[in-house]
């Protein structure tokens, strides 16, 4: 039942990551590439690469039928969706199932259920997991006002079919919430084809913490510690850490217990991450959502636990039991990941596709770089602009920051603008070092500070 040949339905650094994990388990690999990615690192490392379609994602990576057709015709018995693209679209595991291809992830119905944020909240509530004080579905503007009065302002109107920070509107009083109801509903309908809204208390100074989970599909769920992803810009993470050093042990234990209980209550299968809002002032944690896939920032959890999460994904998908106990997983040391993008922070983070003319990465103790890039490689214009993840470990957070600063100073990339310079500013900032940051810190404090400095 172990996987014999794996189809990798993604690109960039995660495709390379999955190919490497498969090779470590002696699994053959076929990568589906777009015409823009035929010379990619994953295509070169895999046993075979097949061209799905032209560059634009909608004609290649986002076409589930193309992807599954390719997997079937190349004799693959399993498929890994990576992150983004189709990784949380139930049609992919459904089509895989119809064609005898094992899906490396949860069942289609679970992906559907967790993708509906209202249903996910209900699951969490049923498992006794604390939620952000909030509402069920809001049927009207009057309803919105009533709920907001009950919850307490400010409130956040959210799309049930949304996620990842999309389709959210803040309201500070009754009039704003009624107006916001109409706006948010229309935006949700346009973006997700579903205008259903609910509401949550808006926490001003929050940290984003999440728990890495792995389930065997039969009720056994393990956690691999938590991550702190509070350095964000427009709800996109820039820096992630493991563990969350700003959380007392008792609360951390509650976080792990809640996340694991939720996943176990639904017999969660394969990798997933439960995301929480951490209200530092109130010292409370609230469930936000579950991401039913491997995440970009999984390496920090790997570094502090010594576990290969993608490897576990493949083994579980291949029918192996989750032959590990919670006590076997120890978190030691501290890891920090910087997502390096080909973007120009000076030009409002405009993505800058192009050719890398110089690629001089850092190296040495405690440094891991997950990247598909190299000198001479091109960044196509069709996809996100992430060119690599720099992950640095240390015995303590302070040591990790020291090593990270040195690594960022050594990291030279030419040919495209990158966010390496911005990361240097972040990790040297006193707030970051003191770890008093929150999810709006980058946009409210650091970036405006930098703009002033540039003038």
């Amino acid at each position, binding site marked *: 039942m172990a996987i014999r040949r794996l189809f990798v339905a993604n690109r960039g650094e995660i495709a390379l990551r999955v190919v490497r994990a498969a090779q470590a388990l002696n699994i053959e690999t076929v990568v589906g590439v777009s015409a823009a990615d035929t010379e990619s690192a994953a295509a070169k490392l895999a046993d075979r690469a*097949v*061209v799905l379609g*032209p560059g634009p994602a909608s004609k290649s990576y986002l076409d589930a*039928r*193309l992807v599954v*057709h390719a997997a079937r*015709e190349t*004799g693959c018995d399993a498929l890994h969706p990576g992150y983004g693209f189709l990784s949380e679209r139930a049609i992919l595991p459904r089509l895989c199932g119809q064609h005898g291809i094992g899906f490396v992830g949860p069942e289609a119905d679970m992906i559907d259920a967790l993708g509906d944020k209202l249903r996910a909240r209900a699951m969490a509530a049923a498992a006794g997991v604390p939620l952000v004080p909030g509402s069920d579905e809001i049927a009207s503007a009057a309803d919105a006002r009533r709920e907001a009065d009950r919850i307490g302002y400010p409130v956040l109107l959210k799309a049930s079919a949304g996620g990842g920070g999309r389709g959210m509107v803040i309201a500070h009083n009754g009039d704003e919430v009624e107006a916001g109801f109409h706006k948010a509903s229309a935006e949700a309908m346009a973006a997700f084809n579903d205008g259903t809204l609910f509401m949550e208390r808006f926490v001003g100074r929050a940290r984003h913490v999440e728990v890495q989970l792995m389930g065997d599909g039969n009720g056994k769920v393990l956690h691999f510690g938590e991550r702190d992803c509070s350095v964000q810009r427009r709800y996109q993470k820039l820096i992630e850490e493991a563990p969350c050093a700003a959380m007392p042990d008792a609360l951390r234990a509650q976080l792990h217990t809640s996340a694991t209980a939720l996943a176990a209550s639904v017999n969660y299968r394969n990798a997933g991450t439960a995301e929480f809002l951490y209200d530092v002032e109130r010292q409370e944690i609230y469930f936000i959502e579950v991401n039913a896939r491997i995440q970009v920032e999984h390496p920090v959890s790997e570094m502090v636990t010594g576990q290969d999460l993608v490897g576990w994904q493949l083994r579980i998908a291949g029918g192996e039991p989750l032959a590990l106990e919670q006590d076997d997983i120890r978190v030691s040391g501290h890891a920090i990941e910087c997502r390096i993008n080909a973007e120009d922070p000076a030009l409002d983070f405009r993505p800058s596709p192009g050719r890398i003319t110089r690629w001089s990465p850092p190296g040495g103790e405690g440094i891991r770089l997950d990247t598909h890039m190299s000198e001479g490689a091109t960044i196509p214009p069709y996809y996100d602009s992430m060119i690599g993840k720099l992950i640095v470990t240390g015995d303590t957070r302070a040591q990790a920051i020291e090593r990270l600063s040195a690594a960022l100073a050594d990291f030279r990339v030419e040919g495209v603008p990158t966010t390496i310079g911005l990361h240097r500013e972040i990790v040297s900032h006193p707030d970051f070092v003191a770890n008093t940051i929150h999810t709006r810190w980058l946009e409210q404090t650091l970036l405006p500070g930098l703009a002033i400095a540039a003038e």
Partner: protein
Amino acid sequence: MDKPIRPEEIEALVAEFEASGCAELHVRFEGFELHLSSDPAARTVARQTAPSAPAEPDSPPRPAPSASSGPAGADDLDGFEIVRAPYLGTFYRAPKPGEPAYVELGATVSAESEICLVEVMKLFTAVRAGVAGTITHILATDGQMVEAGQPLFAIDAKG
């Protein structure tokens, strides 16, 4: 083998081959393998022969090659228009199994002529010639998966 082959012997073999006018020569015995070809487009297909690389599964035997069926050397296609697969899928030469193929070698086509199907998960799309002319090469095999951009036909647009 009693003694290893010497460089002068290989040179003599090559000279004989060139003088002979043969297209190909394969020599193989224990510890030694030599492949000579007079076709400038000949190339080792190392990937497919590596034991660890997955072979294309369930491939039917190659159809008996005529001068212009199957993958052609780059020189053969000089000056012709290549029709390529718009995306990955299964290549079909006929509208339905058992029916005659859309086109055969030598067929005259217009730009709008449908010349094959590419199927993805039971969704069939007809591919059009794109240019008026004559079909000179059929470059893909009926019922086999083709990749996006893979050459399917060559058309002589001047003929």
